[in-house]
């Protein structure tokens, strides 16, 4: 039941994304309507310097997450993660991506591997806003891609899938980012 819900939720989000990004044609335009101000993109294109930054903007402003941000863009998840969410994003650092076998990231960024990249990135996102003090030892979280991750609490640390440790947590307008030192790889289907 809960999985179904999440699945359909994720599917709806993706559908919206595709519908938005695919459309470039415009209907007739009122000549004098305020065209210069007209938004063209999805939610990520909303001009807003007053609100707190969302998870995408927070990640984009981090020097340690350029690989993740590039991957999120390649997977066309920028608009999704600019949604109201709320999201818990587990955000591997550049160093975490560097630990993957050589060539893995480059491979994933190829257009033909977009589905695989999306699957991996969605495995890093949970719908719901979870601070670390709400994470219990042995708890599983059902991620956006449908897979589960397991939480271990050990010596005051929170470890995911026994492979990545949360090293920092940053609140965002639409959820929270937990910086992790490893990339989570979904189990093979």
């Amino acid at each position: 039941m809960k999985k179904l819900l999440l699945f359909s939720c994720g599917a709806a989000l993706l559908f919206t994304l595709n519908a938005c990004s695919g459309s470039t044609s415009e209907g007739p335009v009122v000549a004098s309507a305020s065209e210069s101000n007209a938004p063209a993109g999805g939610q990520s294109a909303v001009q807003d310097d007053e609100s707190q930054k969302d998870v995408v903007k927070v990640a984009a402003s981090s020097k340690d997450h350029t690989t993740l941000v590039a991957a999120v863009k390649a997977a066309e998840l920028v608009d999704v993660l600019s949604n109201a969410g709320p999201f818990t994003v587990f955000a591997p650092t550049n160093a975490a991506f560097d630990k993957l076998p050589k060539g893995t990231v480059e491979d994933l960024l190829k257009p033909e591997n977009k589905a695989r990249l999306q699957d991996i990135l969605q495995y890093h996102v949970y719908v719901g806003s979870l601070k670390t003090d709400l994470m219990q030892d042995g708890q599983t979280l059902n991620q956006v891609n449908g897979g589960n991750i397991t939480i271990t609490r050990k010596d005051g640390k929170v470890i995911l899938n026994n492979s990545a440790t949360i090293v920092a947590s940053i609140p965002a307008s639409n959820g929270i980012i937990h910086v992790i030192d490893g990339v989570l790889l979904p189990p093979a289907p």
Partner: protein
Amino acid sequence: MSSTKILTSLGLVTAAALTLASCKPKGTASAVTGDAASKVYVAPGKYDEFYNIVSGGFNGQMSVYGIPSGRMFKIIPVFSQFPENGWGYSEETKPMLNTSHGFVPWDDLHHIALSTTGGTHDGRWAFGNANNTPRIARVSLSTFRTEEILEIPNSAGNHSSPFITENTEYVIAGTRFSIPMDNQNGDVPINTYKQNFKGSISFIKVDTSGHMNIAFQLRLPGVNFDLARAGKGKSSGWFFFSCYNSEQANTLLEVNASAKDKDFIMAVNWKKAEQYAAQGKGFKESVRYAHNTYSDKTHSATSNIETSVIVLDPASCPDMVYFIPCPKSPHGCDVSPDGESIVGSGKLAAVIPVFSFDKIQQAISAKNYDGNYEGIPVIKYEAALRGEVQKPGLGPLHTEFDANGNAYTSFFVSSEIVKWSVKDLKVLDRVPTYYSIGHLCVPGGPTAKPWGKYVIAYNKITKDRYLPTGPELTQSAQLYSIDGDKMKLLLDFPTVGEPHYAEAIPAEMLMKKSQKIFRIEDNGSAYAAKGDVNAKVTREGNKVHVYMTAIRSHFTPDNIEGVRMGDEVYFHVTNLEQDWDVPHGFAVKGANNAEILVMPGETQTLKWIPERVGIFPIYCTDFCSALHQEMQGYVRVSPAGSSVPLTFSTGKTEPAPAAAPAGATPARPTKN
């Protein structure tokens, strides 16, 4: 007089017959030009060119539309309770509707005035009037919320308001009904109108922050004041008002206020009045009126009762007020962009008289008077008149202007807009409206710098214009292009409530300064909980205060026990979001008032008196997030005298000591 009257009536009848024959609407298809659709089509994601701030009439609200699309963006509650967002229901906003008559949950908002500097729109505020229980409201054009409401003493039927001076120095409020003044014994026979009833016009000073105060009132003869406009440019420092019922009838005004062939335009030298007030020429009267302000800092309103007003009597303040005869119960009183022409629209008149500011000044210098009315000089009609627009139509009401020297007058009886030249007073064009137009709006039309491009008709009757919805039909607006020589109908759009006056302002003047959030660190509410850790529930006697937070996607606390019958529960909900367009709502089962909508960073309070024992769900009413349906909780109500302790929590599942995560449903995330 009688012969003039007969002639006038004959003219009316003839004109009516002609109009019936010649101006019968030919149907929508022929009235709309072929390219109309492309002129009003604003593609998805594109913005309109103008904001149209429209009065809501008997719904007591303002609404905001886009022009040219006619799309409605928002209803701004002003004088009426609005269950949609809790305006007038929440503890914070209730004081805004306080008056000297107590809590007044409804009024009738007729006219909009957008603030100006140097006679042109400045995009700061919209003012509106409460017609029934006299009040003036000021709405912020960055938050689109009502910030201040000021009651008007010595007034009844606050129709001749709000109108503003060029630099928004003053907002004026004129009474429709003359009445015995508030400090007199009002228990008098109604037919002693002529002795006991007086009119008053209030000059409300507006300071740079927008704060309003009644600077002084003019004590005037007992007539009906209808509409008004400030002078501008050369007539800066003057104000012009239309007056009817110079007959001073107190019954069957339909007949008795139309006996004379002329009523008045009243000209007020407000700079002089201001001097008199500064010199102490006014007298202080005891009155009672409410002055309500809303603070975006404390997120709450305060209501104070003021107890005095300064009154200026023209008898002791010479050279301040003049009357000018104007045909047949004038309604609109509009001033051209250059300030020279004052257009009086006698709603029963066959002509539109246009008065000259220069000639009025010459007539005053030369004392070219035709006697006086209750001691106030009456300038000779011909001495003030620039000329008359001949045979303009039937039932002229209101006039707006464009930047090219044209005037646009609405005609209720003949259902049309007539364009005429201000320079030579010649009719240039006419278009039918569907049906029975009241006010009309040219963007910037009442200012020194009209934006032009469109004229919008606000119609009273729509009969066969829309799908029928029973006896009551929507009222409507109609958009016409005025770019070319001929006016062209482009669009019909339905309106909320009854649109009276409206103004339109270029989108770029407002959209960039539209406020997105309230900063949580600036929240000065005494009941704010700035962060989940500050959430709490306290008891003071039978009052239970819940300091609650809301953030995607849970309330803290969401389980509350220990409430007892006889308690008054105050849910103080603070929205912790700092993200544009993410309000949270709050509702509790059985509440006898409304929901509340809480903007990001704001605190709002819903009062609830449980009327039975049991479990009462609470939930977020505004779809906020993917887990909006999870944003819920329970309140347990026990009998009076119960020993159930007052407790509160979020995420605690008893009896298991290890808590489940906050905001999550029990099933997710799960424990292994």
